[in-house]
């Protein structure tokens, strides 16, 4: 950053000025804030983000590296907003602050790299577009961009990092006889990371819309295994004026329907204690709590974390924190595993590739440290392993 001091314009935060004054600094958010618990620094608490937002808006403080880092050291999990007795819209204020910083092209360097990858390669991992088709089973490759009732939007994380989930999705759809298609190398990034960085994501929505228009027959529904993509398709695009013209759903809702209709038949149940972890983007942000539990209940008696549903603790993978501060991020995953261990959990099931990735990495360390082995699974994998189609 150059020596010349930069100040925000204020056009994004101004509308939330009132919220920064509404915060009484009571500190209740400190008791739930995972970023604070991971660092014990006050400038990582939600209330301090309100203080910093106020300072930026008033021109009390310039934008420098420390301010950028602090505004980004947050998973946007939203537990502070749930806990806040003054109902301060903490995450909205934080996101507006990020938008202000984005207006000055200020994001943490590590996140900048992921954004550059999205610009160059269409995904934050920096993989070539063709990589999106590498993990696809042959049946899915045959249906690339062919059109169908259901469009599978895999998302960048599942496409590029989780072969098991990617493969399982299409095998389930084949098994259930669903008319589907997927975009493969033509699937654009949804732009959720750009949104989290404070940038607009509507261009990504328009890009997806263009691809949808090439499909014949045009899908009636888009399903995704990623809560971040789901939020983007279901909430963020419509809010920014992009209408995809089809129903957008998390894939777990669709799989449950397939079971209810009898297109998928449950073949066996899981043995052991099965804990369901609510992803923040699916839970607090999209209020989808019952649906994943209903789906999982076909396969197991669902055990709950002590802090579940609205009170669920973040895995550490949200808000772009993985790229901003991996140490804090991974400490959150480890803390969640400690909670699972106290409950003698065997399976940790979620419905989010980022949660699975965070827990898988943490579980590896946990096993080395304690000997305890967790089976970390995405709901998609549970459905894949334990169902059959009507005819089989």
């Amino acid at each position, binding site marked *: 950053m150059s020596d010349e001091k930069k100040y925000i314009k204020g056009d994004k935060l101004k509308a939330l000025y009132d919220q920064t004054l509404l915060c*009484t*600094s009571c500190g*209740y958010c400190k008791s739930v804030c995972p970023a604070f618990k991971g660092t*014990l620094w006050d400038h990582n608490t939600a209330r301090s983000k309100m203080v910093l937002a106020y*300072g930026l808006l*008033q021109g*009390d403080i310039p934008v420098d590296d420390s*301010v950028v880092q602090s505004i980004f050291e947050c998973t946007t999990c939203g537990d502070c907003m749930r806990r*806040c007795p003054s109902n*301060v819209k903490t995450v909205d204020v934080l996101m507006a602050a990020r938008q202000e910083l984005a207006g000055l092209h200020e994001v943490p360097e590590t996140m900048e790299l992921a954004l550059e990858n999205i610009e160059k390669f269409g995904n934050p991992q920096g993989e070539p577009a063709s990589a999106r088709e590498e993990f696809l089973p042959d049946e899915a490759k045959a249906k690339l961009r062919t059109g169908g009732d259901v469009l599978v939007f895999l998302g960048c994380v599942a496409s590029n990092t989780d072969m098991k989930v990617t493969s399982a999705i299409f095998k389930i759809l084949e098994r259930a006889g669903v008319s589907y298609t997927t975009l493969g190398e033509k699937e654009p990034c949804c732009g959720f990371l750009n949104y989290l960085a404070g940038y607009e994501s509507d261009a990504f929505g328009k890009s997806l819309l263009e691809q949808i228009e090439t499909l014949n027959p045009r899908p009636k529904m888009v399903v995704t295994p990623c809560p971040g993509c789901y939020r983007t398709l279901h909430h963020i695009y419509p809010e920014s004026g992009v209408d995809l013209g089809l129903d957008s759903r998390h894939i777990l809702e669709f799989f449950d329907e397939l079971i209810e209709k009898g297109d998928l038949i449950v073949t066996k149940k899981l043995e052991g204690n099965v804990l369901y972890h609510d992803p923040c983007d699916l839970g607090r942000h999209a209020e989808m709590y019952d649906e994943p539990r209903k789906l999982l209940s076909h396969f197991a008696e669902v055990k709950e974390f002590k802090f579940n549903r609205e009170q669920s603790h973040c895995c550490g993978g949200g808000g772009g924190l993985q790229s901003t501060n991996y140490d804090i991020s991974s400490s959150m995953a480890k803390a969640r595993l400690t909670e699972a261990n106290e409950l003698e959990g065997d399976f940790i099931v979620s419905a989010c590739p980022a949660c699975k990735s965070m827990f898988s990495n943490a579980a590896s360390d946990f096993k080395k440290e304690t000997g305890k082995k967790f089976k970390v699974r995405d709901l998609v994998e549970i459905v894949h392993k334990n169902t059959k189609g009507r005819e089989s």
Partner: protein
Amino acid sequence: MSEEMFKELQELLGENFTTSTAARYAYSSDASIYRAMPDAVARPMNTEEVSKIVKLANKYKVPITPRGAGTGLCGAAVPIKGGITLDMQAMNKIKSITPENLFCIVEPGVIYDHLNNELKSAGYQFPGSPGSAEAANIGGMVSLNASGMRAIKYGATRDYVLGLEVVLPTGEIMRVGTHTLKNSSGYQLEKLFVGSEGTLGIITEVTLKIVALPKAVAAALVSFDKVEKAGQAISNIIAHPIIPSSMEIMDNTCITAANRGIDAGLPDVPAILIIEVDGPIEEVGREIRQVEEVCKASGATHIIVSDDKAVYGLWHEARKSVLPALGGFSPDLKIVSLADDMGVPISRVADAVIGFKEISDRNKVIIATYGHASDGNLHTKFLIDPSKEDDWKRAEKAVEEIYDLVLSLDGTVTGEHGVGMAKAPYMKKERATAIKTMKAIKDALDPNNIMNPGKMFEWESDHIIMNLRYPAEVNFDE
């Protein structure tokens, strides 16, 4: 801060020392109305580090402001003279819990609720019950002599401090008090540091007395059509005699705020009392029935009694939510922490609450009143437009009138939150004959005046509305 000192601190603390904009601004305020930026934030991990930091500060004559969770309401943790803010939150170990000795030993950064969660498994508690229990640090509670709703039966923090380890303003490490329940061994210096607000040294270890958890709890939610009747019920209960474990009063402004804030479902009446009794099962049953009878005889309009924690827990949650929930009371007004915890003799609670209402009407400031009626400790919260100079001026006038009223009722300007800056001029009025001695103690222990300077009796102005963290310039020179 000199470059030399900066380098020495950086070498000592590494990444636990920062002068970053984000940290300095975040640490410039607490839950009070004030803002002042520290020059640096230092985070010690142990007593030795605290000692070294303090020695450096004393050598270079740089102010040090200790800080716990930063939930204080009077500005004790706001570094009004700059210098170093000493964040004690990372010293958060529970060193030992020994029920057989009836005490525990903790570092100052231990969070109140965390300590009680650990004590609970042994069947014990540290029963201070501050409103900010889920965040407040033990060190901060000792520094402010904090307490909460159960003080009538269980006392305040000072009643539990058996011993302390303190780093004096010279950097010397001193142990005061003992690891015994009783001692008559010289000056009771541990009590001197209780409520000293970081002006005499840094608390680095606390030995706290613990008490057994009650076998049973029951509570009553009692409605009144007049505040006076609620006040009379309080006196009648104490005089009966019944010593409840807590007895909270809320006026209609607070009731409305809690209902809006957390959907508490409290009755929409002029005043309520939330009365809790605890003890052996038979005794609790008998006492709660007596409470019910006394309240009826005192003119209660409606009474709900429950021994279900889910039910009375929500009443307590509603009471605890009042301070922050008042923030959502009106879209144009914001809650500011002023005149926040006066104490009066129990029999004068009704006089005080009625007086506060008159002061509110006279100065055209919305003032919400709630508090620990059973020990005479009342809270008011002000709702103002914090961008308007006139609102602040009317608020300060009301504050002054409230303190005058409280002192005329033989009360105190602070029961549990401390003085800081928000009550400094009024504390000087209340403690007029003791100020000289307080100053002598301060001078003796802290000759360079590095420890949290400018607070309490060192506050130089007759006004308290200055150095605001709100967007208003308030000028009193007219």
